[in-house]
C-alpha cells in the first residue's frame, strides 16, 4: 500500500507547490491525478518517485518511507528519455545490470515482445517513432517489475490515435502483474478510461480538491453514456477546482469559508 501523509512541498524560491496532500492507494489500484497547471501534480509524482524530497509529510510504501528512488517504484516521463547510445534492447535492460546476462536477455526479449517491438531490439532509439519510443520507455519501466508505476503525462506528446492505442496497451500490460499505477494527466478522457479513482487537484498551493471513483468495468467503452457521464463529472470538478470562489471540499478551508457546497 502506498501512503501519502500530509505531503507538502515548498521550493527554495518560495513557490508553494503542494499543501498537505494525503491519500492511501491500494496495491493494484489505478489512480489518475488531474488538475490545472501549477496544482502540484508533477511535484507529487516526483515525491513518490523519491526524485525530490517533500518539505514535510511522508510517502510510505508498504510501511517503508521513501526519500530516494526505490527499487519497487518505477517512473515513465512525458518524454521517453531513452539513452541514445544504447540499442533499444540495452535501454530496456538498463536497470537490470545486476541480473546474470542470460536472465537479463530473456526478460528484455519478453518485454520487447510484450510491447510489440521484438523486431526493433537492435535499433537505435533515434530511429524510433514517438509512439515506439514511449513503448520502449514503458517496457524499460515494467521489466524491473515495479510494485508502483508512476506516469507523468506519458502520452501527452503523442498524436490522438497513438495515444488511444497506448492507453489500451498500458491497461493490457497492467493486467499482467497488476502494479499500482499513479498517472498524472491533463486529459479527462485518459483519466476516465484508465483510472479506478480520479484525484482532482487545485492550484496555488497545490492540494486535493475532489476524489471521483470510476466504478466502470474494464474494458471501458469510450462511447457508452455512463462513460460520458463520468467524463462530464470529472470535467465539472476540474472547472470548479479552477474557480476561486468555490471553497475547498477537502483539507483545510479558508477562514470564514466553512460552507459545504
Amino acid at each position: 500500500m502506498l501512503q501519502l501523509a500530509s505531503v507538502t512541498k515548498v521550493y527554495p524560491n518560495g513557490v508553494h507547490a503542494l499543501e498537505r496532500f494525503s491519500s492511501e492507494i491500494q496495491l493494484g489500484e489505478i489512480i489518475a491525478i488531474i488538475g490545472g497547471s501549477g496544482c502540484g501534480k508533477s511535484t507529487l509524482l516526483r515525491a513518490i518517485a523519491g526524485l525530490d524530497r517533500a518539505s514535510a509529510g511522508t510517502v510510505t510504501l508498504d510501511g517503508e518511507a521513501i526519500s530516494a528512488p526505490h527499487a519497487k517504484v518505477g517512473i515513465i516521463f512525458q518524454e521517453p528519455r531513452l539513452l541514445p547510445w544504447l540499442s533499444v534492447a540495452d535501454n530496456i535492460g538498463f536497470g537490470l545490470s545486476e541480473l546474470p546476462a542470460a536472465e537479463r536477455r530473456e526478460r528484455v526479449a519478453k518485454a520487447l515482445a510484450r510491447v510489440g517491438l521484438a523486431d526493433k531490439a537492435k535499433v537505435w532509439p533515434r530511429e524510433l517513432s514517438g509512439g515506439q519510443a514511449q513503448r520502449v520507455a514503458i517496457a524499460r519501466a515494467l521489466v524491473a517489475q515495479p510494485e508502483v508505476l508512476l506516469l507523468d503525462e506519458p502520452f501527452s506528446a503523442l498524436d490522438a490515435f497513438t495515444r488511444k492505442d497506448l492507453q489500451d496497451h498500458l491497461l493490457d500490460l497492467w493486467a499482467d502483474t497488476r502494479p499500482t499505477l499513479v498517472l498524472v494527466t491533463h486529459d479527462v478522457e485518459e483519466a476516465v478510461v484508465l483510472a479506478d479513482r480520479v484525484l482532482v487537484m487545485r492550484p496555488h498551493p497545490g492540494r486535493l480538491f475532489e476524489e471521483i471513483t470510476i466504478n466502470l468495468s474494464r474494458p471501458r467503452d469510450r462511447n457508452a453514456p455512463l462513460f460520458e457521464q463520468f467524463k462530464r463529472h470529472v470535467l465539472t470538478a476540474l472547472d470548479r477546482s479552477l474557480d476561486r470562489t468555490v471553497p475547498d471540499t477537502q483539507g483545510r478551508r479558508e477562514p470564514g469559508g466553512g460552507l459545504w457546497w
Partner: protein
Amino acid sequence: MTMTVELQAPAAAATPQTASRPWLTRLARPLLGLLLPLSLALAWELAVRAGWSNGRLVPPPSKVFTTIAELAQSGELTRHITMTLSRVGIGFGLGVAAGTLLGGICGYWGLARRLVDPTIQALRAIPSIAWVPLFILWLGIFETSKVALIAVGVFFPVYLGLTGAILSVDRKIVEVGRVFRLSGPAMIRRILLPAVLPAYVVALRVGLGLGWMFVVAAEFMGASEGLGYLLIDGQQLGKPAQIVAAIVIFAIIGKATDWLLEIATAPLLRWQDSFARQSGAA
C-alpha cells in the same frame, strides 16, 4: 486508371537510379573536391612549362614532387617526419591527459570548477605563442620546451570541450540514472561518459589540429630536425620548393592523423551514425 499507371511509371524508373547513387556519390564527392586544386596545379605546371613564368618563387608541382622524392631517397624526409610526429604525439598526449583530468574534475565537481576554472580561463586569454620565451628559459631550447608548447595548445580545447560537455549533459537523462539508483561511479560510467563522448571527440580533433599548428611554431624556435625546420631551412637557403614540399607533407600528415582519430572513435559513436548517414544522403 491511366492516372495511377502514369504516376507509378516514373517512380519505378527512379528506383534503380537511387539505389546506385550512394556508390556514385561516395566516389564522386572526393573527386569533385579534388577537381579545383588539381586543375590549378596543372595550369601552373603548364604555365611554367610554356615559359610564361620562371616558377622560381612559386615552384611548379613537378619540382615540388622531385624535392619530396629527393628528400625521401636520402632518408631525410623520414627523419624529419618522425621527429615532428613524435613531438606532436607526446605534446598531444600530455595536453589531452591534463585537459581530460582537469576538465573532468571541473565539469563534475562544482567547487573545483569555481576554484580552478577562472584561472584557466584567464590563462587561455594569453596567446600560447607568448609562452615561448618563458618556456625556453625554463625548459631549455631542446625538446622539452617544444613539447610543452604543443601540450599547452592541445590542453585548452580539450579542457573546454570536456567541461562544456559535462555541464550540458541532459538533466533528464541523469534523472533516468537516478531512477535506476546508479551509484556515483556507475552514473559516470553509464550515463555521463557516453553522453559526453561525442563532444569530447570533437575537442580531441580540435586539439590535434592545434597541436599541428603549434609544432610549426615550436620548430621555428631553433630546431635542427622536423618539418618546421625544413620550412625555415628552405626560407634561409632560398629553396621555395622545399617549403612547399614541407607544407604539402604537413597537410597530408595532419589530415591523416585527424582521419585516424575519426576512425578510431567511430565505433564509439556508432549510435550517431544513422543520423549522419541520413542527412548525408539527402
